[in-house]
């Protein structure tokens, strides 16, 4: 698959090489090799249980939290193999942030939610924290709505605002990559549109990988699309090409809605 992708002019930020993942004896990812270019949005699509979320979570080693997971092959962030021997997972997750399907702000104020990451990294000066909080909230397009009341609980916000708060929280630790696991699946169309717009702006500074069930969304927001099926990467290409002239029959059947 790899050879078919034209990533001309952009270097890969994330890449995997012969990545296999097992839950116990069950293989969830099968020999996946892919290059995801810097400052682009890569969408992962496929039917439920195809391994796209598992794949996403293997990119910042969130799968480590699950017992009995075994990974072989490599994942490169920049030029470092994150499954290599001397990798600090904590540091990795600072660089590769994650947004979850269900918005999950802490039961703290908006300010404390965003300041959480910098604080655990040792930032104590109020002025610096204030700056980070404002910048992150602005980047997450939430500042205008909440600037008046940063002391309000993050849980008092609407679903869409909560998700943007989570994005702001992730941005506050200054990651290089943002992984998004169906970030808009629980949101209404207006909030979804806001998140999509935001992704378009964010890719200026970040590399984004998004899992989505919604093929229109993938077509709208992503530059590259990977189609997963049964733990295998079936096809990976520029989004335009994958949606207009898919090379694999399974891809075509899936995107035209014949299964999945």
């Amino acid at each position: 698959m790899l050879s078919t992708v034209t990533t001309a002019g952009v270097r890969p930020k994330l890449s995997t090489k012969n990545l296999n993942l097992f839950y116990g004896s069950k293989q969830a990812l099968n020999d996946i090799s892919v290059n995801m270019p810097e400052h682009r949005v890569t969408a992962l699509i496929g039917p439920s249980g195809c391994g796209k979320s598992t794949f996403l979570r293997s990119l910042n080693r969130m799968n480590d939290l699950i017992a009995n997971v075994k990974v072989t092959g490599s994942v490169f962030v920049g030029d470092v193999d994150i499954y290599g021997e001397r990798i600090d997972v904590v540091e990795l997750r600072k660089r590769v942030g994650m947004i979850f399907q269900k918005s999950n702000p802490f039961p703290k104020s908006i300010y404390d939610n965003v300041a959480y990451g910098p604080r655990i990294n040792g930032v104590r000066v109020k002025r610096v924290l204030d700056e980070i909080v404002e910048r992150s909230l602005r980047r997450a397009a939430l500042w205008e709505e909440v600037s008046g009341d940063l002391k309000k609980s993050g849980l008092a916000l609407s679903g869409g605002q909560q998700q943007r708060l989570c994005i702001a929280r992730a941005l506050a630790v200054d990651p290089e990559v943002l992984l998004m696991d169906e970030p808009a699946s629980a949101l209404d169309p207006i909030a979804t549109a806001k998140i999509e717009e935001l992704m378009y702006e964010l890719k200026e500074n970040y590399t984004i990988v998004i899992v989505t069930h919604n093929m229109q969304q993938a077509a709208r927001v992503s530059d590259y699309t990977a189609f997963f099926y049964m733990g295998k990467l079936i096809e990976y290409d520029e989004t335009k090409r994958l949606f207009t002239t898919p090379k694999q029959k399974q891809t075509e059947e899936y995107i035209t809605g014949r299964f999945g």
Partner: protein
Amino acid sequence: MKPRKNDAPTGRAALLRKRVRPVEFLAEYIIKAVSFVSFAVIILIFIFVFREAAPLFYQSEHHAAAEEVAQETYGDDSADQSAAPAKEKASVDNAGAESPATFQNLAGTEWQPVSSKPKFGLLPLMLGSFKVTMISVLIAAPIAVFVALFTSFFAPKWLQQILKPTVEFLSGFPSVVIGFFALVEIATLFQNLFGYEYRLNAFVGGVALSLAVIPIIYTVTDDALSAIPSYMTEASLALGATRWQTALFVVLPAATPGIFAAVLLGIGRAFGETMIVLMATGNAALMSLDIFQPVRTMSATIGAEMAEVVFGDTHYNVLFLIGSILFLFTFALNAVAEFYVRARLMKRFGGSA
């Protein structure tokens, strides 16, 4: 038309025939009866304890009654042979004496219920209970919370499966055994270690009591911690927080109301626990803030004296007054733990917890 073998009505007829299902009927009423009975028993205990304490508040009527039953002592005096005759004599004297349980007397600093001029000062007993409870909870709460954190976040599965039942097993440990252990082993060990004067004192009692309190705080804290949704911890870890940072800055704050409830329940247990303190604290009703002095707690006082008191005597009423105070205190603690904390939890997680 041939009649069906099973002549149960079908269709509309079945719907319209309201059936009596005896087993369900019975089960439902048995459950109702049992829960009602246990509720009623609690109410009755409540009423009983207060009724027995009540004569203190209208002494004049009480005295006539007290005289009638003054001779009718119950319990045995085997526990303390030398004190028994004195007590017998004193209680007879008491009955005729002028009302000894005035408010002033109750608020006094001396507890000498068995003497020719009985003193029912509750302050040393309250102070004793307070001291021992504080010592035990200050020891038990941090240990229990940290063990709960450890078992729910850091321990590998196999260790968790050993630790959790072990700590919970401790709660089923007979308190008399803990008391005995404290009396024989802990007391000696600590005296050698710290070199204080009295072998049995508030500190030894508090330490022994913490063994009974730890499992309570642990169990409730563990529940509170496991109620924290995993997406909360994931969010923190995904931000590059370590496990400890996640535990300290996300999980603990989110579980605060539950941990608060756990500590309140622990205080309730420590406050009401009798056997351990009776055996390990030395039982001297002193007004002292020194934790290495012997103390006498409210519960131990009831435990030690109830069996030897003259039925209906002022002393007897005062013991029930102490019981009422204990009862109200633990009841209030439990109520706060239940209602206040639940409301807080609900607010925190927007009703989803």
